[in-house]
């Protein structure tokens, strides 16, 4: 296992995430039907298809170029809540990654952390609000923890993916306090948060891309 990732791996990540949200499009929409407005699958599929088209057409040679391009494309093709949130995530990752050709574990960790902070800055979500934060925050924490325990990039990404999925599953009993699901009050309990579900796909795609 290499201990850095380059733009090829990042590109693969973006492709895999596109594949995942496209494959799971109906599932994401169904989750959003239960407690939202039935568009999360379409939103993510439209955005990631545009993002892949954009980076495949370009030839980003640095991590920041590639990640910002994904972020900008999401901002300008998704709309809704997920557009600014996922867009900000990738934009902030890019800004933190800088003009490097590759990122090591610590570099990727701080980029992910910056992405998460960006989402919080935009959406003001807190733990337990039943949003994608509840999948992303544990994932980023687990990534850091795995590296701190001496794990390599692949191990860290795997443990982040597992944490994102647990975080996603843990949204089910919660009563939403942010986003559309919050309008439902108590009726939002008993359903997975759609954004947490797409975030779990994001981290699984990262782990898979790093595993190669």
């Amino acid at each position, binding site marked *: 296992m290499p201990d850095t990732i380059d733009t090829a791996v990042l590109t693969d990540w973006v492709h895999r995430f596109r594949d995942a949200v496209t494959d799971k499009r109906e599932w994401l*929409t169904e989750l959003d*039907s*239960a*407690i*939202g*407005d*039935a*568009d999360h*699958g*379409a*939103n993510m599929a*439209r955005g990631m298809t545009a993002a892949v088209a954009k980076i495949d057409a370009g030839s980003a040679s640095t991590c920041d170029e590639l990640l910002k391009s994904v972020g900008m494309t999401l*901002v*300008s*093709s*998704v*709309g*809704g*809540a*997920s*557009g*600014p*949130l996922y867009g900000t995530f990738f934009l902030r990752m890019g800004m933190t990654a800088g003009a490097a050709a590759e990122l090591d574990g610590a570099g990727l960790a701080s980029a992910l952390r910056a992405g998460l902070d960006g989402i919080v800055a*935009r*959406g003001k979500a807190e733990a337990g609000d039943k949003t994608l934060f509840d999948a992303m925050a544990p994932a980023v924490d687990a990534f850091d923890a795995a590296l701190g325990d001496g794990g390599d990039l692949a191990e860290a990404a795997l443990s982040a993916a597992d944490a994102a999925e647990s975080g996603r599953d843990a949204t089910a009993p919660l*009563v939403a*306090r*942010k*986003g*559309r699901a*919050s*309008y*439902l*009050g108590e*009726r939002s309990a008993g359903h997975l948060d759609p954004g947490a579900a797409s975030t779990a796909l994001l981290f699984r795609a990262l782990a898979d891309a790093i595993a190669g």
Partner: protein
Amino acid sequence: MKKLINAPEDVLIESLRGLSLAHPELSVDFENHVITRATPKEQGKVAVVSGGGSGHEPLHGGYVGHGMLDAAVAGEVFTSPTPDRVQAATHAVDRGAGVLHIVKNYTGDVMNFEMAAELAAAEGIEVGTVIVDDDVAVQDSLYTAGRRGVGLTVLLEKLVGAAAEEGRDLASIVELATRINGQGRSMGMALTSCTVPAAGKPTFDLPEDQMEIGIGIHGEPGRHREPIAPAKEIARMLVEPILGDLDAAGGPAIVMLNGMGGSPLIELYLMYGEVAALLEKAGVQIARNLVGDYITSLDMAGCSLTVLKADDELLRLWDAPVRTPGLRWGM
């Protein structure tokens, strides 16, 4: 799914095409999904821009024209438009006196318009924003994203559109918009779910003997489900929470009984009769009204009620000429 459409992914663009063919007095930017007046208003007047997800027609595109909006930005169905498109609309209609953004209070809309305002500011365009949050079905508390913006948006677009036409400055228009938002409330209900074209099936299952009370305009389930009831009862379920939150008794009001898209006018008039009786009994003096489909949720059957406390200024602005596909009088 039974709809008059071709492919679900083309609904927005093809509907815009029809709108543009039907209304030569409007101009449609198909790249950005922005609808503007074919003849822009005079230089030196504040421009009014609104937008949001599609599926609420005639809102917002149908309210572009003299006396109302300068531009509407149409997102995908139930999905807020992106910042660059809102910015394109803002740029297109700025006449040097600043632009008001009318934003319905949804996380997505608020974030996207916020980013658009930042982009516009960077370009030197002064942007003022009003966030409409009139839906009493949702509590404005720490535990929600705040009240949703629903029916009041229509009335607000009409009223501030008239004020902008009068040549008032941006600060006073923002103040007016904020005041209107403070004195209007709405409540909605659904007999059926709507079907989002891309989803292909109803957003929620609603048995033949049940209805949803406290719905928004995105086909989301409401606050609670009730056994289906006569119009009289439904009227109570709409009027009471509004009057519980807004002291509208004793003065004039502008009232809208709005259809959600799938309920025919014969039923909307019947419902209006019920709510008007309740409102008048509570001391509300209905000075102006709208009955019909003004802010819809695709093909959902159901209705919403909006009550706006009015005064001489608001009634004067209401009566000012307006010429849009969705609202027209005086010209």
